[in-house]
């Protein structure tokens, strides 16, 4: 079945759909794109029994996870959808195992769409919760290109000169531009948010990652986004978040994480090197290796740099829970230890 979905024998390709969804809608997060892709898969597939559906789902999920370099964020979505499906199917009544399968399927699809809509709305909800953390006269340090953080800051800024506006400043940590990712421009991730904030009259300073320790003394609060929130309340986020967390802890600044609750992943990393993805951040080389690589690259001609560049910009690190003051999610402001409670609620 997996082979069928991926090859051209079947018109539906889950990986292509997933990538297409992410490209077409810049507001879409990875877990939601994954769920949407799975819903589309179900609409396209002519499965007629429950076990067939679950089997198809499982196989395409595994396939999707394999073909994406960093499946942490994605797996939050697929796991959630699978879990939701199973609980719906187990529930007694018309939609249960005894019911008509076509009705079940229709119900699942409509609910899947509802789920996606709700997930998109959750960003506003988070912004509403998180506004209070941006105080008048404070300076916020943030990094990366998180859309939730952007929407939170923009909402806090409010209308220009409006009554609800909070006067605050932002220190934006920009990592140097990396070749190309979706954005196609050479400017660093987050520049868009910087422009939007400046437009609203928020003074923004941009600093390189190396200046975080220097600048943190001027900041009152650190707010970052996350790719995934793991079971112990830590976060998996873009490379560089961990060091900001460590510095914030050392300087006694509150470190808040903004994340939608569909980013909660059933994952329990014990440290940086316990993530289920292969990252070649530390790559020891001698002069010989460098020479070898150069000759190999020449042989293989062009495709190598294209493969490499998303690899190096997609790298993530793990920020342990003891560095995090609170997580601002759409189900409220949680302490890191409350995350596992939320996860247990979903899974049991």
């Amino acid at each position, binding site marked *: 079945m997996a082979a069928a979905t991926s090859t051209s024998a079947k018109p539906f390709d889950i990986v292509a759909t997933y990538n297409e969804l992410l490209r077409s809608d810049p507001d879409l997060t990875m877990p939601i794109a994954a769920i949407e892709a799975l819903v589309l898969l179900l609409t396209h597939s002519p499965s007629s029994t429950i076990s067939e559906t679950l089997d198809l789902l499982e196989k395409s999920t595994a396939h999707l996870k394999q073909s994406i370099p960093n499946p942490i964020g994605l797996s939050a979505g697929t796991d959630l959808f699978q879990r939701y499906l199973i609980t719906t199917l187990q529930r007694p009544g018309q939609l249960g195992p005894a019911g008509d399968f076509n009705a079940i399927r229709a119900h699942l699809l409509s609910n899947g769409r509802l789920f996606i809509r709700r997930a998109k709305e959750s960003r506003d909800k988070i912004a509403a919760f998180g506004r209070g953390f941006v105080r008048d006269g404070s300076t916020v340090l943030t990094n990366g290109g998180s859309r939730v953080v952007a929407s939170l800051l923009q909402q806090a800024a409010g209308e220009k000169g409006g009554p609800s506006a909070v006067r605050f400043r932002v220190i934006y940590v920009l990592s140097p531009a990396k070749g190309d990712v979706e954005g196609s421009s050479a400017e660093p991730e987050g520049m868009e948010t910087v422009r939007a904030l400046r437009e609203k009259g928020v003074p923004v300073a941009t600093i390189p990652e190396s200046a975080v320790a220097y600048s943190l003394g001027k900041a009152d609060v650190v707010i970052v986004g996350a790719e995934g929130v793991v079971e*112990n309340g830590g976060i998996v986020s873009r490379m560089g978040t961990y060091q900001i967390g460590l510095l914030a802890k050392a300087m006694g600044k509150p470190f808040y994480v903004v994340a939608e609750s569909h980013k909660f992943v059933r994952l*329990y990393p*014990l*440290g940086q090197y316990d993530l289920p993805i292969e990252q070649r951040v530390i790559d020891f080389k001698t002069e010989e290796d460098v020479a070898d690589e150069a000759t190999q690259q020449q042989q293989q001609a062009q495709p190598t740099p294209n493969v490499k560049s998303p690899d190096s910009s997609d790298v993530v690190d793990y920020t342990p829970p003891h560095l995090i003051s609170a997580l601002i999610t759409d189900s409220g402001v949680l302490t*890191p*230890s409350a995350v*596992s*409670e939320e996860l*247990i609620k979903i*899974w049991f």
Partner: protein
Amino acid sequence: MTSSTPTAPSPSPAAAAAATPTTSTPSTAPTSSKPTKQQPSSQSQKPSKSATKSKDAATAATSATAAPADSATAQLTPAELKKRAKAEKAARRARERAERESSGPAGGAPSGGAATPGKKDGSGGGGGGGSAAGASGSKQVPRRGSAQNASQNGGGGSKADDKNVAVFGHLYGQQRRTTVAGAGKEVHPAVLALGLQMRDYVVCGSSARCVATLLAFKRVIEAYTTPMGTSLPRHLTTYLSHQITYLSTCRPLSISQGNAIRALKLAISSIDPSTPEAEAKAFLGEFIDSFIREKITVADQVIASSAAQKIQDGDVIVTFAGSSIVKQTLLLAHKQGKKFRVSIIDSRPLFEGKSLARTLANAGLDVQYSLVHGISHAIKAASKVFLGAHAMTSNGRLYSRVGTALVAMSAKERAGGVEVPVIVCCETVKFTDRVALDSIVVNEIADADELITAEPMQQLTGLPDPAAVTVSAADAKKGGGGGGGKSAAAAAAAAANAAAESNTLAQNVSSPLTGWKESANLQLLNIMYDVTPAEYVDMVVTEMGSLPPSAVPIVHRMSTNL
């Protein structure tokens, strides 16, 4: 079944000491069902009860003065009554202590005099004299559960009190049962046997004890017939509580045992009284079987498989003592073809790690075994720490074999290296809603004599003249080892090499601590558990998934309320 059989050194002096009171007890007092009546010490020189009686008679005149006070009882408020009861208790205790001292070898006369005013209070007077007596007695250690203690001390040895470490005074409670004599007639033979097995650490480990208890109770229920005029759900619980009381006198119940018993009692009380007895018994048997299967057997498999995922090639796993679930995890990871080393940290006196080391080595793993003193060395190479649990408390703390906290702390505070993750493997049946802030308030004290036994030394150098052996051996016999010192021990070691018949003697003398009860200013503490702070635990692997320690109360609530 996860019964670990520790290769505990046979506690020969302890057994010898224990044998003495069992023979003397029936002669001084009739066999009673109360375990507190047991006289565990060999030092009681006369039956205390009769002594009390005779002294009471001698002070009949003083007690007459207290008669008017008795008539005033009616007008006393409850608070005052309470106060007076307290005073009476204090007085009684003081009197008992005084008696003990008077029966002891030294300073009998003055303390005996001090006891007289105390006795007057005991027969119903005010509190003033009582406190005076308390003050005049030797340093009084404040402790909880004093009623129990007092009765024990009254019958017990003259110096038992000094031998209790003050901070842990509240834990001494009653002496562990050493025999089935005196057990109630309603205690089932299976339970009788299990009690002694638990006492001797034959059945040791939280899960093993839990399973063994449930299996024994299954036999109890099978053999049970409801008496006339009552129903099974009503009577069986009280019947079971006799068994439970017996078990707890052999060794304090573990958290898992408590949880299992609670679940069983709940199941019993949920039976409809009109259910036929056979049906009800079958239901309970099934309940016990499924409880063991769900909460322990299958749970262990789930935990082992998810904990084994955390083991990677090249890891060096440090573990402490002998947890069956950790053993299962390591064996599973090995079976999955992972290449890793295991470093077992063990401690006296139970040496639970020995059998673990043997099992793992037999299975083909690389095992390094060291005692807890070598922790700083062992932790240097470590990449992960796996720990078993006796219980997890609601504030996320780990309550486990003493020494665990040390291992966890060493891993976390390792100097100049990456933090070593500490992983606890624990079934949810071991979760408790209790909160532990330290390892003093709740703990278990084992027989201090377990600390004394030492393995026979194989000494090759510094041996004394063979001719002196017999002399020094005789010396050692006389001195009881108290002041014997090194020469006696050396002589004993020589004797062990020399002849087989003096070998037993050698073992008795080899430990300088033998006869510690006779020497003043010497206390031994054999504590069983300690509490590891939640900050030192990175992950708790349970059958419901991997959790941070802070999620323990949530999971406990869910697993008990479902």
